[in-house]
């Protein structure tokens, strides 16, 4: 296109005013329950996720106090069991998955250059479901009837016979309910990534974080349903006397298969978006395209596939046939290959550059160190004889905290420091950020590395105390003190979040000189995300545009209603303008209706029926076209 053919775009203030009006979320207390904009919902997911992270961390602190001395009486055994169960449930179900989804919901549409997710109301519904599930779980804890069977809730311990009371009922129903939220988010992330990329952003120009979220979403779609089936079966076993997991009549191992078929991919569901964050943070802080884009994408997809072939390595000690053990040993070792590809591509990206050592990059480098240790102990426990030796000891606790905190929480905090300016318009304090990184990094290693040793010495996990003559007291005291250091590290990051909210340095649109589209709009983004939908001609759109150069954009999207551009799946050719739904209270009502159905099941069999009927009413209200006559009129005119 030559210069003189270009039509200059003039921002009319009238149009901007219309856009602001149309995309605005209703203010006020009651308005809060009708928000559907992706930035609003994404922020809620992130904040709620961090609240649960703090709660889960407090539970961990209680456990560390109990374990700081042999035969300690700080927590009674049953309460200890409830607390370690809730710690696991919180971190896996209420923190890790929702917060990754929260970042995805907030960041991905901005990276794609679109104005909202495909199904904004479903998005809001997913949040309420998550909130209700989390509150219900903690209500159970404060009423002293939380589950006390571990986050994996193995029968027969979790059966009605050995776990009377409401604890496991809470677990089974809340988990099933909670998965609806994850599945809804996954499906709409897939639809959004497939259909709403800015024109020209073909699949091979997507930022790696978007690729990672896509792989994560596909994994959720296949991993969560078996868990839902399992937890419904568990609930039925406990309430109406079915025999699924009853020893002798059914098979407790069936639960382990269903649970770990979900549970192992779950680890990758948490890890993969973190890998995407790392790639994008590295690109920004080295100011060069990431090395091996294609290899990184393929290894993300490969991890997604292999992640489904590993679940039995959680079950080596249940007496599997040897052939099965061999197969899963091989598969478990194989996942090291794509993980290694990632690490080497990142090292090559760093090679010969002078990276900017800001806090987000520090967290990424911390990830390298910790995750490699976690990966190495992972290769160790992938082998049957070694696993049999350390099974159910603190070696495992050390291993999976290295993998999960190292693999997900460190990149997550990197992502937090990285995208905080986009969310709030202000940078987080850099000095405090560096302090928090070093406290977290040192505190983490001092807490969890000695656990390898404790595990090799035979200290069993999930047990509320240990005996004096075993001589583990000193190391446990050291671990507990180090956990305090780790907590201090996280605390300083949270202080930083609050402090910077008002006093942080104003960020501007693109404080890091990053390459992807989310930095191409103001910080925080307006309700409509982009004044003009950008046109993408390269993998690093923002680096393409030099100062003073004209930027190609899309015009002609209506400003007087919520409209966005839908593009083709592979090449992102513009296809049509879709009209999006506005604020609505129906998502909340549906979440409550579904909650009544699931939650009530603990008390009476009639509630699922009630929930079914209420859900139908809520869904009909949700989908009923309110402006029926107006829409028909508009079209015929």
């Amino acid at each position, binding site marked *: 296109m030559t210069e003189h053919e270009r*039509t*200059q*775009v003039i921002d009319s203030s009238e149009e901007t005013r219309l856009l602001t009006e149309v995309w605005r979320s209703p203010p006020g207390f009651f308005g809060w329950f009708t928000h559907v904009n992706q930035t609003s919902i994404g922020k809620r997911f992130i904040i709620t996720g961090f609240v649960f992270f703090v709660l889960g961390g407090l539970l961990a602190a209680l456990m560390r106090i109990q374990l700081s001395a042999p035969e300690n009486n700080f927590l009674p055994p049953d309460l200890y069991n409830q607390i370690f169960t809730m710690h696991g449930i919180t971190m896996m179900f209420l923190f890790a998955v929702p917060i990754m989804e929260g970042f995805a919901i907030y960041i991905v549409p901005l990276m794609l250059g679109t104005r909202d997710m*495909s*199904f904004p109301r*479903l998005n809001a519904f997913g949040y309420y479901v998550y909130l209700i599930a989390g509150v219900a779980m903690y209500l159970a804890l404060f009423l002293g009837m939380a589950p006390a069977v571990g986050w994996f809730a193995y029968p027969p311990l979790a059966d009605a016979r050995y776990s009377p009371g409401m604890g496991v009922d809470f677990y089974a129903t809340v988990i099933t309910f909670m998965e609806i939220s994850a599945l809804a988010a*996954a*499906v*709409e992330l*897939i*639809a959004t990534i*497939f*259909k*709403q990329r800015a024109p020209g952003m073909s699949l091979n120009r997507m930022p790696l974080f978007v690729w990672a979220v896509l792989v994560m979403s596909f994994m959720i*779609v296949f991993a969560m*349903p*078996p868990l*839902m*089936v*399992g937890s*419904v*079966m568990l609930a*039925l076993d406990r309430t*109406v*006397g*079915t*025999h*699924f997991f*009853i020893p002798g*009549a*059914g*098979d407790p191992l*069936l639960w382990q*298969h*269903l649970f770990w078929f979900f549970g192992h991919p779950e680890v990758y569901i948490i890890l993969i978006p973190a890998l995407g964050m790392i790639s994008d943070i590295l690109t920004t802080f080295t100011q060069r395209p990431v090395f091996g884009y294609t290899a990184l994408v393929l290894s993300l997809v490969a991890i997604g596939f292999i992640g489904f072939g590993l679940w039995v390595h959680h079950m080596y000690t249940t007496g599997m046939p040897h052939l099965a053990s061999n197969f899963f040993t091989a598969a478990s070792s194989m996942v090291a290959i794509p993980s290694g590809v990632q690490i080497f591509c990142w090292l090559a990206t760093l090679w010969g550059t002078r990276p900017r050592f800001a806090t987000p990059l520090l967290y990424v480098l911390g990830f390298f160190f910790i995750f490699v240790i976690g990966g190495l102990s992972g290769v160790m426990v992938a082998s049957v004889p070694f696993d049999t030796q350390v099974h159910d000891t603190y070696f495992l606790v050390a291993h999976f905290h290295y993998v999960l905190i190292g693999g997900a929480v460190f990149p997550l905090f990197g992502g937090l420091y990285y995208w905080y300016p986009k969310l709030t318009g202000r940078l987080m304090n850099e000095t405090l950020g560096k302090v928090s990184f070093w406290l977290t990094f040192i505190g983490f290693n001092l807490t969890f590395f000695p656990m390898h040793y404790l595990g090799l010495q035979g200290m069993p996990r999930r047990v509320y105390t240990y005996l004096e003559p075993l001589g583990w007291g000193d190391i446990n005291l050291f671990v507990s003190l180090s956990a305090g250091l780790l907590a201090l590290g996280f605390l300083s990051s949270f202080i930083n979040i609050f402090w910077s909210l008002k006093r942080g340095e104003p960020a501007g649109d693109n404080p890091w000189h990053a390459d992807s589209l989310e930095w191409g709009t103001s910080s925080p983004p307006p309700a409509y995300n982009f004044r003009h*939908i950008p*046109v993408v001609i390269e993998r690093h759109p923002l680096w393409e545009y030099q100062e003073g*150069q*004209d*930027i*190609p*954009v*899309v*015009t*002609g999207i*209506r400003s007087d209603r919520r409209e966005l*551009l*839908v593009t*083709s799946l592979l090449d992102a050719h*513009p*296809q*049509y*303008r*879709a009209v999006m739904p506005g604020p609505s209270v129906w998502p909340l009502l549906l979440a409550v209706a579904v909650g009544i159905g699931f939650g009530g099941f603990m008390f009476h069999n009639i509630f699922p029926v009630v929930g*079914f009927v209420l859900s*139908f009413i809520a*869904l009909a209200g949700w989908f009923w*076209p309110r402006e029926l006559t107006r829409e*028909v009129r508009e*079209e015929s005119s």
Partner: protein
Amino acid sequence: MNRFSAIDASKLPSYAFSHCVPIWWGIIGLIVVEATVFASLVISFFYLQTNFPTWPPDGTQPPELLKPTLATLVLLASAIPMYWADSSIKEGKTFPLKVGPLISIALALAFLIMKVIEYRDIGFRWDTHAYGSVVWAIVGFHSAHVLALILKTSVVTTLAWQNYFNSKRRIGVTVNGLYWYFVVIIWIPLYMTIYWASHLLQS
């Protein structure tokens, strides 16, 4: 920085069909999720079977084949009027959309009634043995889907009678049809599992 218009979207349509529309992918996502749920149930059926010397366990006859097969044919038939309605609206014919779904709903209801009659005196309950648990779970879960399908389609039909749909605005009909075909088709492996597998495994 100056911006120039590279694409004028006002010339693009404000509607689209089938896989161009995000909701089409949303329904496909839902179908994949539900198919995984059903697959987990079927796998559980065969996993539990390995624990028993006979399957169904001693004292339980495998279900008869004739009536369930008839019911399956009724359910399969219910997809035909739905397809008729779905393909007619593409050409702008609205009448089939007003009648077709009603026939489909009637057939689906007939299927549900046949299931209720069948399981009222099937001879075992969900708490009789693991076989009973998994069979009741599969049939119950699928029947809940058929019920949801009937309710969902009744909303679409009501809108059709209010002349809401036309040859441009028909994505609602498309996705409702997709979900209908799914619930019908997924019954085939479930039917094979519950009825044929129970027979073949016992002999």
